[in-house]
């Protein structure tokens, strides 16, 4: 291999961007939801940006024209019925469509606010679609986010390869977003929710745990008193593996700082824009899958096509782990960071 290509061969390794310097975060609007902000408006953390009915349903109603003809997507408030008390919640919702002379509404009686999990500026409000808020702070990318949005102070509860068990989740962590290591089971998630933890950051979360958690969230949301915000940020995938060391270094830097978990895109937004996150080492490679999953080393050159177990031939690279001789690893199993 010539000098010209030796330098670029490392580009064959999948490149994973860990941090965004600024990010547009999308908060979806479902039928019945109402945006409480307008494009260009500045929002602060905790400010309501969307109003959502907890018990949203389809309502059939007559809408009397009030000057202009009603349009789909408009918000409509039902007049209070006879005998209604002044503290009764007003029924209303979003006009969906008109059929047979009557309108179908998506609405309910108990609107609740969804609050901005970070300070930013509203970039766009698309009725029926969502609200986009831009943050100028750094944001750490994840692979997936469940539930949320939520915010709290970051607390690193385990090391990168650790696993937070239910018995180790204590009420002292209430109000915080915790870094829970390589994996977390459904029981620990339920307990974390119960003690008032606001969010979990974990390297991997299995399919069963995801389903159990989402089912629990649906039940909790339908309950009379609802649930405080809670979110899970999954950094890697479903099968157990340690948190990558560059990410762990960032979390350790953010210990005690206010952060937010958001879903679209899945990310951890840092509240303080002045915080500089430590950059990943330039020559670091991480084995993402295979027998050495989780191991980290440095690039030692392109190995070319190699035969691996199960008789498959794959393009490979030499990776040096510590002071040991380089090992040929399939390029597809590697990732590098930026």
């Amino acid at each position, binding site marked *: 291999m010539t000098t010209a290509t030796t330098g670029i061969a490392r580009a064959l390794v999948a490149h994973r961007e860990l941090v965004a310097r600024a990010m547009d975060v999308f908060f979806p609007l479902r039928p019945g939801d109402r945006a409480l902000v307008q494009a260009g408006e500045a929002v602060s953390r905790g400010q309501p940006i969307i109003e959502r009915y907890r018990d949203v349903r389809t309502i059939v109603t007559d809408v009397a024209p009030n000057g202009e003809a009603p349009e789909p997507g408009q918000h409509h408030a039902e007049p209070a019925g006879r005998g209604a008390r002044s503290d009764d919640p007003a029924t209303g919702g979003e006009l969906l469509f008109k059929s047979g002379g009557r309108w179908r509404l998506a609405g309910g009686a108990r609107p609740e606010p969804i609050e901005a999990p970070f300070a930013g500026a509203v970039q766009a409000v698309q009725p029926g679609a969502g609200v986009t808020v831009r943050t100028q702070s750094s944001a750490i990318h994840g692979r997936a986010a469940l539930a949320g949005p939520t915010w709290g102070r970051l607390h690193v509860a385990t090391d990168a390869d650790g696993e937070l068990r239910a018995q180790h989740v204590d009420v002292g962590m209430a109000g915080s977003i915790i870094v829970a290591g390589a994996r977390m089971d459904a029981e620990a998630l339920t307990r974390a929710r119960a003690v008032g933890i606001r969010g979990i950051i974990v390297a991997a979360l299995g399919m069963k745990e995801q389903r159990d958690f989402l089912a629990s969230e649906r039940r909790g949301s339908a309950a009379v008193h609802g649930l405080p915000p809670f979110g899970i940020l999954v950094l890697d*995938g479903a099968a157990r593996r340690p948190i990558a060391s560059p990410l762990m270094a960032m979390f350790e830097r953010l210990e005690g700082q206010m952060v937010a978990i958001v879903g679209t895109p899945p990310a951890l937004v840092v509240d303080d824009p002045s915080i500089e996150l430590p950059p990943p080492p330039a020559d670091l490679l991480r084995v993402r899958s295979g027998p050495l999953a989780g191991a980290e080393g440095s690039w030692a050159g392109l190995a070319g096509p190699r035969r691996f177990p*199960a008789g498959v031939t794959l393009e490979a690279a030499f990776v040096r782990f510590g002071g040991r001789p380089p090992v040929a690893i399939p390029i597809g199993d590697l990732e590098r960071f930026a």
Partner: protein
Amino acid sequence: MTTVPRALLAIDAGAATTSVALLGKSTDRWRLLGSMAAPAGTPPDVLAAILADRLMGVDLALADHLGISSTSVEDLPRLEARSSPPATLAVLGASRRAVDLLAGVAARTPWHVRAASPETHDPREMTELALRPEVAAVLVGAGDPPGPDERGWLDDLAALVGAVARRRPELRVVLAGPVGDRPEWAEGFGEPIEGAAERVFHAPPIGVRSGPDEPLREVLESLIPNTSDTRHGAVRAVLSLADALDRRVEVLDIGLNGGLRAMASPGVADQGPSAIAVRTARAALVPAELDDAAVDAVLAWTTGSLDRHRMGDRLLDLRAQPWADAAGEGARLRLAAGRAALARLAARSADIGALASPDITVVAGGAFAAAPPRAVALAVADTIRRAGATQLANDHARLLGPLGTIDDPDERRGLVADLADDLLAPLGSLLVVASVPGSLRGSARAGRLTLDGDLHGRHDLAAGEISFIDLPPGDHALATLEFRDAARIGHRARRVAVPVSGGVAGIAVDLRDVPLRLPERRDRRRAALAAWGELAWPGDER
């Protein structure tokens, strides 16, 4: 003055991996000089530079002759095909029956289909579905006249879709049947209907479901930009390939976001080559929305001890990082997922499956890119159950998609004809024998196969089993199959002679049931799969 290029790059930017092939015209014909793939997102120029570097390492004179160097390779002309994630189509009907019929047709297109009817969703949920930002089009249909199960909801449905289309001016709407005639549609959409001609399309009603579904499929496929799509290009390239080789060619392609099955026939007399094709998002290697049924479909092809949850985790990771974990157990998992995807593809392309066995079956797509040849042959034999003989080949350099981007059919045919020997890596031949009498099941001598000129003599064939017989790439032979009772391989006979060609997998002779029936009991099914797998994964290299 224009200069005729002597080298070019063929790039297939897939959803999982990017593949680059370096083509050169050293004498009077184009040849494949090398190919390489890397995880999606890798700049093609990096791959091209490494390929050029390797070429210079093995044949510097050829590289000089073609003007190829690692620094100038980025200036080469290129044929580039790309796979995009499937756009989402919301399919709405006034009854579950109606929506099932519509979704069945839509599933034979590259759209990712989300279906809803008033029997499964309330109007708010249907509105939410149609308003989602990822939904690019809505298909709404009814019979003409509407069926009794549709009449109660049709006006509401027309109003709902009209209102959604009014709120989302970029949304395209396909009206199949008399939905557009309902006053609620016009009222919901608004008067005057501005821009309706550009985004509202009409298709036949559901009532003609017993006829061919092409009219509706054509409308749906016309909404997807095809100019550089890999699978669209592959259909055009396989047309040229069939014409150039004067053979019937079938292509089976499984990728991360969808699959393709196409059958191309060479032109006859003054008629050009023809093809029928099904591109479907349902045949994705791992479905975008992984449910229990999808996990079970993969588990059914595995012999390991993973439970449903762990298998789900593995599949989620395969979906998220499709280029990773391609060796060892990961390779077996990938082939199990590939089989499940092939089975979904076969189910969506029964019209192609009913055709006679093609002369050549080309296997393509990332699902089979790194798998051992016999394992690929076994996966095809397991899922595409059609009695007959076919030659198996692999689009190993992923050239079909890029070659299909050439618009001029004559120019494309010329290039494909030049490259035919290089673009098809011969896997071997697949002989599927059907209607082997049940009384012979388990018999070691249900029949025998003799190859012309084979020094090893005759090969005994067992009913209900598959066997591999070595025949090197490039070798051709006449295989004579003799059975104790009549069996079907193309036609019913006790003695059949078919030409076969060799490959790295050899000849696969399959006397299992058509369609394949696996034992109901899990342990027996796994035992059967393990026994067949040992033939395909020799030495059990884990």
